[in-house]
């Protein structure tokens, strides 16, 4: 084997952490399958690392980590073909291996290299305790099985790599958000001070321009907040701290918090008095964020002078939170996209309503992190009802908590 091949193998092993890979039941099954198909008492799946051989899966005999001098698979990875040894005692390459001279006294060996990410990183091997000749058919089958085992390893690597990529992306988004905030802090600070310092001496025209800059700096801040929030929620990095909470009590709190905002928009907020003991397992602050998002949307889209209705109720083992508006309803063409990031039905909405287009995506992500489901339906009589269904807390049916 060339040095280049060695380097490639070690690089693949290091890159995917295969020298530290956990032994797995699925790998044991691959070994057992090879033993069965080739009618051999022993089989194993190995990784040949820089200075030792490691066992990923084994049937009947697990060598554990061993020195390369004892490894028979270290010879197998030198070619793409199956390495077959009829009697290990007479084979110069392996006769001094401790597995031949000592327990379990391997006599015959057949190993096919495991081709992972273009490198022969180890082998799927079967062994016999008496000398044996492996047929061409045996070798062909072993090669097929090693290809299947390599696929399994690659699939596991894929999952690990995807997880790592998610983590790195989350870290990146979080860092970018911090980095963007620093210049933004100076911009927001400077714009705010210009128009508020007593001696600014600005014309009405200049103040209007500063107003535009100020509103957009605020919008940029909200965008950064929302982007960070949705990224951390969807990548599972945002910690959600569930506790047993009574959604009925929480909607009452949320109604008080959100009423001033809705009233500033020229609408009212009515709370349907909730039944007792609507217990769910949820992060209180996150659920308040859900209610606040849904209520502010409803407030924006309701017709002037109408009411936004907030309710919580129990339905079929679920606890339902609902927010109804008396607005124009959601156009058919927009229904499929409503939860997409940055989707706003009318692009002038941004200016008129000041949203980022991320509110509903964030709301949906939060609800789903709680094992719930967010959806909407036309409100009978006009408007739209958004509802979030949460699983009822197991504690809800404790006699003391029954409503």
């Amino acid at each position, binding site marked *: 084997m060339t040095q280049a091949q060695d380097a490639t193998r070690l690089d693949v092993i290091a890159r995917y952490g295969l020298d530290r890979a956990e032994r797995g039941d699925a790998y044991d099954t691959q070994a057992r399958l090879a033993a069965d198909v080739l009618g051999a008492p022993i089989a194993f799946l190995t990784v040949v690392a820089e200075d030792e051989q490691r066992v990923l899966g084994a049937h009947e005999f697990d060598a554990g980590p061993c020195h390369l001098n004892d490894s028979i698979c270290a010879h197998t990875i030198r070619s793409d073909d199956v390495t077959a040894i009829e009697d290990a005692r007479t084979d110069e390459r392996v006769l001094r291996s401790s597995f031949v001279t000592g327990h379990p006294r391997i006599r015959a060996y057949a190993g096919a290299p495991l081709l992972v990410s273009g490198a022969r990183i180890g082998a799927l091997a079967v062994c016999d305790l008496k000398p044996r000749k492996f047929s061409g058919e045996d070798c062909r089958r072993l090669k097929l099985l090693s290809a299947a085992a390599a696929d399994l390893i690659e699939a596991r690597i894929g999952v690990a790599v995807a997880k790592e990529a998610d983590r790195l992306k989350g870290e990146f988004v979080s860092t970018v*958000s911090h980095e963007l*905030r620093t210049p933004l802090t*100076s911009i927001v600070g400077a714009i*705010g001070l210009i128009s*508020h310092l007593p001696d600014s001496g600005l014309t009405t025209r200049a103040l209007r321009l500063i107003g535009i800059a100020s509103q957009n700096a605020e919008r940029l801040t909200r965008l950064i907040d929302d982007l960070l929030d949705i990224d951390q929620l969807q990548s599972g990095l945002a910690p959600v701290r569930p506790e047993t909470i009574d959604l009925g009590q929480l909607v009452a709190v949320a109604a008080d918090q959100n009423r001033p905002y809705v009233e500033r928009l020229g609408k009212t907020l009515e709370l349907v008095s909730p039944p007792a003991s609507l217990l769910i397992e949820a992060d209180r*602050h996150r659920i308040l964020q859900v209610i606040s998002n849904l209520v502010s949307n409803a407030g924006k889209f309701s017709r002037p002078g109408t009411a936004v209705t907030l309710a919580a109720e129990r339905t079929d083992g679920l606890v339902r939170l609902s927010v109804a508006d008396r607005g124009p309803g959601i156009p058919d063409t927009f229904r499929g996209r409503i939860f997409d990031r940055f989707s706003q039905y009318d692009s002038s909405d941004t200016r008129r309503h000041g949203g980022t287009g991320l509110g509903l995506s964030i709301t949906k992500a939060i609800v789903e992190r709680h094992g719930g489901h967010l959806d909407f339906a036309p409100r009978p009589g006009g408007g739209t009802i958004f509802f979030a269904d949460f699983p009822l807390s197991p504690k809800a049916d404790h006699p003391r908590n029954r409503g």
Partner: protein
Amino acid sequence: VPHQHPQLRTVLLVEDNPDIRDLVEISLAELGGLVVVTASSGREALDVVAHELPDLVLLDYMLPGLDGSQILRILQNTAATAQLPVAFLTAKTQPHEVAEMMSLGAIGVIAKPFSPITLAEQLRTLWRTHHDRTR
């Protein structure tokens, strides 16, 4: 004489970014009527408090050298400054980050970007709440 609530008068601002340092100083001094002393690093801040104690420290969380949490710990472990109220000014705004900063013993966390118009009022509220609680 009616009972007078003590007032927040002096703030030590610790911030490495010179633009933000100027903006906070203008906001607190010119709009907020507070006396502001500034420091651009933890070392400088510790020198300042060794000479004269402010009523409150507004501390950037991410500083080169000693960071905000380390500075807070040093203040807490020094007898003369153990009771000094500290609020963080930070670009770390996620709920779990804010919760962590509060758990270190800060009296409040001000998110960047902050509003320069209400900053002094925010600090006065935090300071009053803290003062009422510890009296």
